[in-house]
C-alpha cells in the first residue's frame, strides 16, 4: 500500500468546495504526486453539507482513506460530521468566524484561522477557500510557488486583480500557519514526477469515445452521467460531430440506433432511471442487429434512489433488462484508463458484433478525480466490423441479403447510401433478406445466428484482468470502480501474510466463464465483492456455472465508497471463520 495522506475540505454546497479541492489536488499532481479526489455531496444545489477529500500518495491510489490528516472546516456542521475522521492531535483548520467547537470525543487539534477575515482584507470574500489552501500547503510543507503559479494560470482570464487576490490569499494563509509553527507538520512521501493527468472516468470515457470516432452523442441530462454529454458538447463540434440534448432517454437511444444504422458511430450516456427507459430501444438494436453504445453510469437505485451516491446495481438490468432474448455485451471499466479503453473498445465491439454494447460505469469512477499516467492513443485501432463492399453489391443479381446465415453469425451490413444495398432493418423477426417472416424454422435459424455471434466472447482476451493471482489462496473478484479498494486491500493482506489476489471482470456479459474458471482454479476461497445488495455479479457467475463451496460474497450497499479496510475485514473474517 502506498503511504498516503488525506486532506479534506468541508462546508456548504454551492460554496466552491469542489473547486477548492480541485485546485489543491491539481497542484499536488503537478508537484509529482498521485491523487485520488472524492466528494461527499447531496442532490441539492446550494446549502447542505459537502466535503472534498484529496488523497495524496507517491503511487497510484484509487480508493478512499478511512481517516484524514487535515480537515479544513468552513462550517460548524463540517466539524460535527467529519471531526472524528482526524486522528488525535491532527489539525482541524476552522474559520475563526465560526467560533468553532470540537464535538465530544474529537481529539483533533483545533486551529482557528481567520479565513473570512483575511479574505476580506485581501479584498474579495470569495478567496476565503484559497486562504485555506495556502494554509494547507504550509501544513504539508509544500512549495507555495506551485500554488501561486496555478492560481495565476487559472484566474488569468478573470483579470489581473482577481489573480492577484488569489495569490495574496494563498500567501496569507501560508504565512498564518507558518507563524503558528505548523509548517511541515506532515511530510509527504517523495514525489515521483512524470507526465500525469488528473481526470475523472467521465472525462477519460468521453475522450475514448472521441478517439473511437464517435461523432454523435444523444442524451438527456442525469447525474452522474451528464459530464459525458457536457464534455462532448465542447469537443464534437470541433470534429464535425454533434451532441443532441434530447427530450428524454427514449429519444436518445433511438436516435443512436438510427445514426448507427446509417453508418455513424453514435452513443448515449445515462444513469439508472434513464437506462430503464432505454430497455425497449436496446432490444430493437439487438433484433435488427444495429450497433449501439450505451453508457450507464450507475448510482444508487432503485428508482431515484440516492442520485449522488455510489452503487453497482444495474448489472442484472444491463444483462436481462429487456423483454425477450436479445444479444447484449456488457463491459465495465474500473479506472479512468480503463474508461478510456472501454469508451473506445465499445464501438469496436458494437460494430463487430452488430449489437448493443453497454458500458457500465459507476458514480465513483465517473466523478472522482484520479491520476492518470498512461493514456496512449496508439494501440487502439478502429474496427468497423463487417460492411459489405460496394463491388460486391454491384455484382449482386438479386436482393442484398442483410441477415445472411453465416458460420459465426455475423452478416455484413450495407450502409444507407450504398447503391443496391437497400434492405429493411426491423425489430420484427425477419428472414435473411430482412423481410418480415414468422416461419418457425426461420425463427430458429435467426435466433441461433444472433446468439452464435457472441459465443467467442466467453473467452475474449481482456475479459478479465488479474493481479497478484499467482499462488493466491484468496481470490477477490470484482468489477467497476471498487477495483481500487480491492487492490489496496490485496496489498494490505499480503503485508499481513495473507496470499490474496484480485480478479477484475471487465466483460460482464457474456460472462467469461472460461478464463474465470482458469484464473480462480487455484484459489482456496473466492470472495466476490460488489457494491450492491444482492450480489449481482455472483448471480451471473452462478448462471455461468461458476459456483462451488469456495465462493463467498461481500456486498456493500450503503452508498459510501467501499474502503480497502472493509475488504480486508471481509477476508479476515473468512480466514478466521473458515480458516483459509
Amino acid at each position, binding site marked *: 500500500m502506498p503511504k498516503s495522506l488525506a486532506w479534506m475540505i468541508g462546508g456548504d454546497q454551492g460554496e466552491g468546495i469542489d473547486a477548492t479541492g480541485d485546485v489543491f489536488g491539481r497542484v499536488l499532481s503537478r508537484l509529482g504526486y498521485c491523487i485520488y479526489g472524492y466528494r461527499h455531496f447531496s442532490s441539492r444545489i446550494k446549502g447542505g453539507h459537502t466535503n472534498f477529500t484529496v488523497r495524496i500518495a507517491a503511487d497510484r491510489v484509487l480508493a478512499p482513506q478511512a481517516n484524514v490528516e487535515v480537515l479544513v472546516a468552513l462550517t460548524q456542521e463540517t466539524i460535527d460530521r467529519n471531526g472524528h475522521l482526524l486522528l488525535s492531535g491532527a489539525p482541524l483548520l476552522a474559520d475563526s468566524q465560526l467560533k468553532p467547537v470540537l464535538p465530544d470525543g474529537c481529539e483533533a487539534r483545533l486551529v482557528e484561522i481567520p479565513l473570512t477575515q483575511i479574505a476580506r482584507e485581501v479584498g474579495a470574500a470569495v478567496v476565503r477557500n484559497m486562504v485555506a489552501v495556502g494554509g494547507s500547503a504550509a501544513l504539508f510543507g509544500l512549495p507555495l510557488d506551485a500554488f501561486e503559479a496555478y492560481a495565476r494560470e487559472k484566474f488569468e482570464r478573470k483579470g489581473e486583480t482577481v489573480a492577484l487576490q488569489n495569490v495574496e490569499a494563498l500567501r496569507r494563509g501560508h504565512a498564518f500557519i507558518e507563524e503558528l509553527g505548523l509548517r511541515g507538520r506532515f511530510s509527504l512521501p517523495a514525489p515521483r514526477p512524470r507526465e500525469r493527468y488528473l481526470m475523472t472516468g467521465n472525462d477519460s470515457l468521453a475522450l475514448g469515445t472521441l478517439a473511437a470516432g464517435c461523432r454523435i452523442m444523444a442524451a438527456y441530462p442525469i447525474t452522474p452521467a451528464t459530464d459525458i454529454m457536457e464534455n462532448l458538447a465542447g469537443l464534437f463540434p470541433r*470534429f*464535425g460531430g454533434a451532441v443532441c440534448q434530447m*427530450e428524454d432517454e*427514449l429519444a436518445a437511444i433511438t436516435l443512436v440506433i*438510427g445514426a448507427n444504422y446509417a453508418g455513424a458511430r453514435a452513443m448515449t450516456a445515462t444513469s439508472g432511471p434513464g437506462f430503464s427507459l432505454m430497455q425497449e430501444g436496446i432490444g430493437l438494436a439487438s433484433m435488427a442487429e444495429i450497433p449501439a453504445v450505451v453508457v450507464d453510469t450507475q448510482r444508487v437505485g432503485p428508482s431515484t434512489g440516492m442520485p449522488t451516491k455510489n452503487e453497482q446495481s444495474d448489472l442484472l438490468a444491463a444483462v436481462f433488462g429487456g423483454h425477450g432474448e436479445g444479444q447484449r455485451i456488457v463491459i465495465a471499466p474500473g479506472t479512468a484508463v480503463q474508461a478510456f479503453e472501454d469508451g473506445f473498445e465499445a464501438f469496436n465491439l458494437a460494430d463487430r458484433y452488430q449489437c448493443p454494447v453497454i458500458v457500465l460505469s459507476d458514480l465513483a469512477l465517473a466523478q472522482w478525480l484520479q491520476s492518470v499516467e498512461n493514456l496512449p492513443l496508439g494501440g487502439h485501432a478502429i474496427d468497423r466490423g463487417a460492411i459489405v463492399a460496394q463491388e460486391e453489391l454491384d455484382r449482386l443479381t438479386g436482393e442484398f441479403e442483410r441477415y445472411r446465415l453465416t458460420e459465426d453469425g455475423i452478416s455484413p451490413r450495407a450502409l444507407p447510401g450504398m447503391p443496391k444495398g*437497400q434492405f429493411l432493418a426491423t425489430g420484427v423477426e425477419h428472414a435473411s433478406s430482412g423481410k418480415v417472416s414468422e416461419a418457425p424454422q426461420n425463427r430458429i435459424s435467426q435466433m441461433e445466428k444472433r446468439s452464435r455471434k457472441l459465443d467467442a466472447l466467453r473467452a475474449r482476451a481482456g475479459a478479465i484482468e488479474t493481479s497478484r493471482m499467482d499462488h493466491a489462496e484468496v481470490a477477490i473478484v470484482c468489477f467497476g470502480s471498487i477495483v481500487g479498494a480491492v487492490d489496496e486491500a490485496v496489498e494490505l493482506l499480503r503485508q499481513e501474510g495473507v496470499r490474496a489476489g484480485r480478479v477484475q471482470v471487465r466483460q460482464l456479459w457474456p460472462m467469461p466463464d472460461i478464463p474465470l474458471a482458469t484464473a480462480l482454479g487455484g484459489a482456496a476461497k473466492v470472495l466476490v465483492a460488489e457494491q450492491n445488495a444482492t450480489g449481482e455479479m455472483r448471480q451471473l457467475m452462478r448462471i455461468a456455472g461458476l459456483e462451488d463451496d469456495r465462493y463467498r460474497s461481500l456486498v456493500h450497499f450503503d452508498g459510501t465508497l467501499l474502503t480497502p479496510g472493509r475488504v480486508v475485514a471481509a477476508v479476515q473474517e473468512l480466514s478466521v471463520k473458515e480458516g483459509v
Partner: protein
Amino acid sequence: METVTLQDYKTSEKSWWCPGCGDFGVLAALQKTLVKLGIPPHRVAIVAGIGCSGKMGNYINSYNIHVVHGRTLPSALGVKLANRDLLVIAAGGDGDGFAIGMNHFVHAVRRNIGVKYIVMDNHIYGLTKGQNSPTSDHGQKVKAAPFGNVESPVRPLSLALTAGATYVAQGFSSNQAQLARLIEGAIAHPGFAFVNVLSPCVTYNKVNTYDFYKQMLHDLDEDPDYQPDSRGGAIAAVLEREELVTGLIYHDPGSVAYEDALPGFAEQPLAGRDITLGQEDFLELLASYR
C-alpha cells in the same frame, strides 16, 4: 438526375393492407413523387413506426428502418445526422405519432430537423384492431370504449403550428395529385416538413370514411383567400374549420434545418468521413487535464 422508374421502388413484397385502406394511396403518392424527382432508392431512408401505416417502408425498395412504436422521429433524426445526404422520410400512424410519440413530435418540430414526416392519420389504432386514437372523435364507440370516447381529439395541425413548425400540410389519401404535390413540397423544404394525411381505415373506423371526408374537407390550396404564409392566420384557419382542411397550410421560407444550425457540424455525411483522431489533437486535449 438519374432516370428512376416506379419499378425501382417496388419490392418483392405486396402491400398487405386491407382492400380499400387509405394507406395504399399514400404509398402510391410517395412512390410517384420519388420517381418524379428522380431520387434513386439508395439515397432514400424511410423510418417507419409500428402500426398498419408503419408497414409503409416494407413496400418501398429504399433503405428502411422499422423501429419501435412511437420513436419514429428521433430515429429519423439519427439517420439524418449520420448521413445528411439522404432523403429521410419518417412515416407512421396517428397512434405512433400523437399518442406514444407525441413528445418527440413536439420536439422534432421545434428543433426543425431535416426530416419529412408523413402521418397516415386514420383516427384509429388499426393494427391493434380498432381502439380510439388521439385523433378519434369525441363520442366514438369502440370495444375499448363501449360507451363512447370521453376524450377530445388532439389537433395535429394546430399543435404543429403552435410548436413552431415550418412546413405544415394536410392531404387526403384519395386526392393523389394534391398529396403528391404536398410531399414534393415537403421534400424541397429545408427543415422539418409535416404532412398529415387523412387516410381512412375501412375496417375499424366507421365515422371518418372516404365519404365523410369528401363531404367535409375544405381545400385551402383552391381557396383564393388563403395564404399559407402566416402562422397566426394558419392557426386561426384550422381552428375555425376544426382541421377539416387540405392543402399547404403553412410554410416558412426562411426555415433553417437543425443540422444546418448545429455548430461545427460537418457538411459532408458523417458516415463517410475519416474518424481517426490525430495524435496532436489528442495530446492537446489531454493537456487540459494537467
